[in-house]
C-alpha cells in the first residue's frame, strides 16, 4: 500500500467508482480541490447517471417560450419557401440583380453559411487531433452548427440558379444527352468539395452521436425508445465497437481537416479565378479559410451562450470553454487582419485605375459605411476586448463581441460580392445593386431554418457529447505535488 502522504492513492484501488472520490483530509488541499472542481468540468466528477440527467432533463420539458419561438421560426421558414417559389415562377428579375452585379445576397449567404460551418469542424476534429481536452463538451454543439449551416449553404446555389429545375445537370450522372459537367469550372469543384464536406460532417456527427443515442435508448420508453433504438444500431459499448469507433473517428478527424481547408479555399476560388478586379487575388484561399474560422468561432460562441442559458447547461459549459473559444476568436481576428491587409496592400500599392477606383469607393465613397463597420467589427472590437480575461468569461460581453464579429464578417462578404462587382474596367458597365424583398425574405428564412433545426435537434439528441465527458472525467485526475494539487490532463 503506498504511503498516504506521497502520491494520492487511486480511489479505485479501494473499489470505489471514479465518481465517488473522497475529498482529501487536509483542509487546504480540499479547498484547492473544490476550486479545481469549480473551474474544470473534467475534474468536477459526478456520476454518469447524474450527468446524463443534467442533459436529459432540459430535453424532456419544453417551455412555452420554446414553442412560441418554434412557431415564429417555422413562419420564417415558410416565408423563405414562399419567396423562393415566387422567384422560381417569375424569374430572377424579382431580385435586385442586374448587369454587372450578377451575384449578390444569395452568394453572400452561401459563403457566410459555409464559413460559419468551419469552426464546428475545427473544434470537433482539429481540437480532437491536437488533444485539447476542453473541446469535450462543446464539440457536438459546434458540429451541429456546421451540419445545419452547410445544409443551408447547399441550398443557396439552387436558389441563385436561373433555371433551378435543371440543377441536376451539374451532376455527373449517366444520361443520353452525352454531356457531363465541366471540371474546368470552379462551381463544379465547389459542388464536389461541399458534397464531400457536408456528407462527411453528417457522418462524423452521427458516429460521435451513436454512444449517446444508446444512452437515450436506455433511458426512454415507448415511441421515443423505438426511435433511439433504431438509430443506436444496437450499440452496446463492446471493446470491438469502441475500437472501431475510435479508428473511424480518427480517420474522420484527420481527413475532414484538410477537406475543411479545401472547401472554403475552393469557395474562395469562385472569386479568385475570375478576372474581376478586387477578386483576382492569389491570397483569397487562406484569407477565406481564416475568415471562415473567425466567423464560425463567433457563431459557435453565440450558440453555446444561448444553449447554456436556455437549457441550463451551466454544469457542462464553463468559463474555461468560453475562455478557450474567445482566445481562439482573438487569434483568428489577428490572423484575419494579417490576410486582409495582405489582400488590401497589393492593389493599393499597384495603383491600377480600377483598383484605385474600388479603394476610393470603400474608403471615401458611397460604400464607406460598410467598409468601416467591417473594419471596426473584425479588427478593433476583438483586439480591444478579447485581451481581457474578464471580458472573455463575461458571457454578455462575449455574446456582443461574437455578434459584432459575425456582422463584420457578413459585411466582408457583402463588400466582396455585390459591392465589388459594381465596378470593372469599362466604366460604361458600372452599376448599383439594390436589395429587394424576395432576397431579404429568403435570407431571413434560411437563418430561421438554421435556428429551428438547431433547437429541434437539441430536444431530440443530447447536444453535449456525454460519453466524451464521462471518458474525460474517468481519465483526468489531480495529483498531489508538495502542497499543490496538479491537474493531470493526459487522455492518452
Amino acid at each position, binding site marked *: 500500500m503506498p504511503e498516504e502522504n506521497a502520491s494520492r492513492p*487511486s480511489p*479505485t*484501488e479501494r*473499489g*470505489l*467508482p*471514479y465518481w465517488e472520490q473522497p475529498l482529501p483530509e487536509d483542509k487546504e488541499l480540499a479547498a484547492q480541490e473544490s476550486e479545481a472542481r469549480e473551474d474544470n468540468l473534467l475534474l468536477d466528477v459526478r456520476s*454518469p*447517471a447524474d450527468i*446524463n440527467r443534467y442533459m436529459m432533463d432540459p430535453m424532456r420539458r419544453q417551455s412555452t417560450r420554446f414553442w412560441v419561438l418554434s412557431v415564429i421560426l417555422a413562419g420564417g421558414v415558410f416565408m423563405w419557401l414562399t419567396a423562393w417559389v415566387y422567384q422560381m415562377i417569375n424569374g430572377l428579375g424579382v431580385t435586385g440583380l442586374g448587369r454587372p452585379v450578377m451575384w449578390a445576397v444569395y452568394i453572400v449567404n452561401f459563403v457566410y453559411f459555409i464559413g460559419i460551418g468551419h469552426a464546428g469542424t475545427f473544434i470537433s476534429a482539429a481540437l480532437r487531433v491536437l488533444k485539447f481536452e476542453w473541446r469535450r463538451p462543446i464539440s457536438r454543439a459546434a458540429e451541429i452548427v456546421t451540419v445545419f449551416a452547410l445544409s443551408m449553404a447547399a441550398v443557396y446555389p439552387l436558389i441563385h440558379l436561373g433555371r433551378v429545375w435543371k440543377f441536376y445537370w451539374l451532376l*455527373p*450522372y*449517366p*444520361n*443520353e444527352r*452525352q454531356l*457531363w*459537367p*465541366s*471540371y*474546368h469550372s470552379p462551381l463544379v*469543384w465547389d459542388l*464536389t*468539395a461541399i*458534397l*464531400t464536406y457536408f*456528407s*462527411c460532417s453528417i*457522418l462524423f456527427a452521427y*458516429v460521435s452521436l451513436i*454512444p449517446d443515442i*444508446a444512452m437515450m435508448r*436506455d433511458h426512454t420508453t415507448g415511441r421515443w425508445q*423505438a426511435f433511439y*433504438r*433504431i438509430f443506436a*444500431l*444496437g*450499440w*452496446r*459499448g*463492446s*471493446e*470491438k*465497437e*469502441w*475500437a*472501431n*469507433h*475510435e*479508428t*473511424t473517428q480518427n*480517420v474522420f478527424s484527420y*481527413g*475532414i481537416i484538410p*477537406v475543411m481547408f*479545401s472547401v472554403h479555399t475552393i469557395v474562395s476560388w469562385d472569386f479568385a479565378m475570375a478576372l474581376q478586379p478586387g477578386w483576382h487575388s492569389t491570397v483569397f484561399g487562406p484569407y477565406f479559410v481564416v475568415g471562415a474560422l473567425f466567423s464560425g468561432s463567433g457563431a459557435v460562441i453565440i450558440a453555446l451562450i444561448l444553449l447554456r442559458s436556455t437549457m441550463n447547461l451551466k454544469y457542462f459549459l464553463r468559463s474555461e470553454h468560453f475562455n478557450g473559444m474567445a482566445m481562439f476568436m482573438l487569434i483568428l481576428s489577428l490572423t484575419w487582419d494579417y490576410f486582409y491587409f495582405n489582400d488590401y496592400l497589393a492593389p493599393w500599392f499597384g495603383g491600377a485605375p480600377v483598383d484605385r477606383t474600388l479603394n476610393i469607393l470603400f474608403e471615401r465613397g458611397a460604400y464607406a459605411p460598410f467598409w468601416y463597420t467591417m473594419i471596426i467589427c473584425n479588427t478593433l472590437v476583438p483586439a480591444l476586448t478579447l485581451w481581457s480575461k474578464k471580458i472573455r468569461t463575461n458571457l454578455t460581453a462575449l455574446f456582443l463581441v461574437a455578434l459584432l464579429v459575425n456582422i463584420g464578417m457578413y459585411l466582408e462578404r457583402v463588400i466582396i460580392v455585390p459591392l465589388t462587382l459594381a465596378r470593372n474596367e469599362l466604366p460604361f458597365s458600372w452599376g448599383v445593386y439594390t436589395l429587394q424583398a424576395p432576397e431579404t425574405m429568403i435570407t431571413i428564412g434560411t437563418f430561421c431554418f438554421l435556428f429551428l433545426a438547431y433547437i429541434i435537434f437539441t430536444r431530440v439528441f443530447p447536444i453535449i457529447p456525454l*460519453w466524451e465527458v*464521462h471518458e474525460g472525467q*474517468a481519465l483526468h485526475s489531480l495529483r498531489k505535488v508538495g502542497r499543490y494539487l496538479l491537474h493531470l490532463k493526459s487522455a492518452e
Partner: protein
Amino acid sequence: MADMHLLGLFNNVEAAADAIDRLHKQGVSDEKIVVLSGSPYKPEMLGRPHHHGKVGLASLGGAVLGVLLAAFLTAGIYLLYPLFQGGQPLIPIPPSLIVFFEVTMLGTMWTSFFAMLVLSGMPAFKAQPYDPRITEGHIGVQVTLDEKSGDQVEEAFKGAGTVEVKRETLAPVIDVKFRRFWGGVLGLLTIGAVISLLFFYDVLKIDFPTNMTEQFSYGYEQGPRLAAPDSSVPVQGPALIAGEPASLPVPSSPDSLQRGKTLFGYNCAMCHGVTGVGNGAVGAFFTPKPFDLTGSTVQGLQSDEVFVVISQGFGVMPPFAENLSPEERWDVINYVHSLKK
C-alpha cells in the same frame, strides 16, 4: 449442455479488471470475454488484448476507390466530351488535382464509416446481453460458456465485487422490428437506385416540358400568317410566300380550270362535295361542316386569302401545302371561282 452468456456488472475499473484476472486464472480464454462500457477504456486498463480492427485498412481501400473514381470522372469527362473552354488544355491538370483530392477524401471517410458499421456488426439485428446501467458508468464483463461453468464464473464475479450478474441463454431474441426497419430502409434505397437508373437510361421516360421547344416565331415552312393584327394594313394583291419571289397568281385560263377541276376532284371533293356545296361524304363527319364554296362567304374572299386557307388549313381543314404546289393551288382557286353561283 446449452451455451449461455453471463454478464457481470461492475461500477469501477479495478473490480472489472480483477474479475477478468480471475477469469483468466479459471482458464477462460480471451475470445469468450467481451467487455462493455459507456465510455472507452484502454484495453491495458482491464488486462485485455488489443483489438486489431480493419477499419483503417478499409479506409485505405476507400482512398484507392476514391482515386479511381476521380480519375474516371476527370479523364472520362475530358476524353468523352472533348469541348474546349477558355484556351485551357483539354485535360486541365490543376482542376483535376482538386477533384482528385476531394473525391479521394470522400472515398476514405465514407468507406471508414461503412467499414465501422460492418466490422462492428451494426446494425445489430440480434439482441445481445446488455444492461442499461452500462451507459451510467458501469462496466459489463460478458462471458460466453456452457451451463456447468456458470456457477464458477459467477463466484469469480462476486469475489471481484460485482453489482449484479445476469444470465442469458444463447439464443438471443431477434429484434424483429429493428430488422424490419433497417431491412425496409435498405429495400427502399435499392428500389430507389434501380428506378433512378431506369430514368437515367431513358427506360422510364417522362415527357416533361422543356423551355424552348415552343417558339413564338414562325418557321419558313409555316407560311404567311393567317390572322393579320388589327392595326395592320391589309395586303391585297400578290400572296407573299417566304423564301419565294412574290408571284402573280396563275391567270384563269381554260387549261388552268381543267387542271383545277381535276385537282379539286382529288383533293377537295371528298369533303366539300363534287359541286362544292359542302356535302362531301367525308365532310359529313366533321363539326362544323365544310364550307359551301359556291356561297357568298367564300366567293367574297380575296384570292390570296383563299390561297392561305388552302396552304395552311382552317380549323378542321388540313393544310395542303405539301400536297399541292403553289401553281396547282392557284388552279384550284380558279376552278373554285368558276363554281360561283
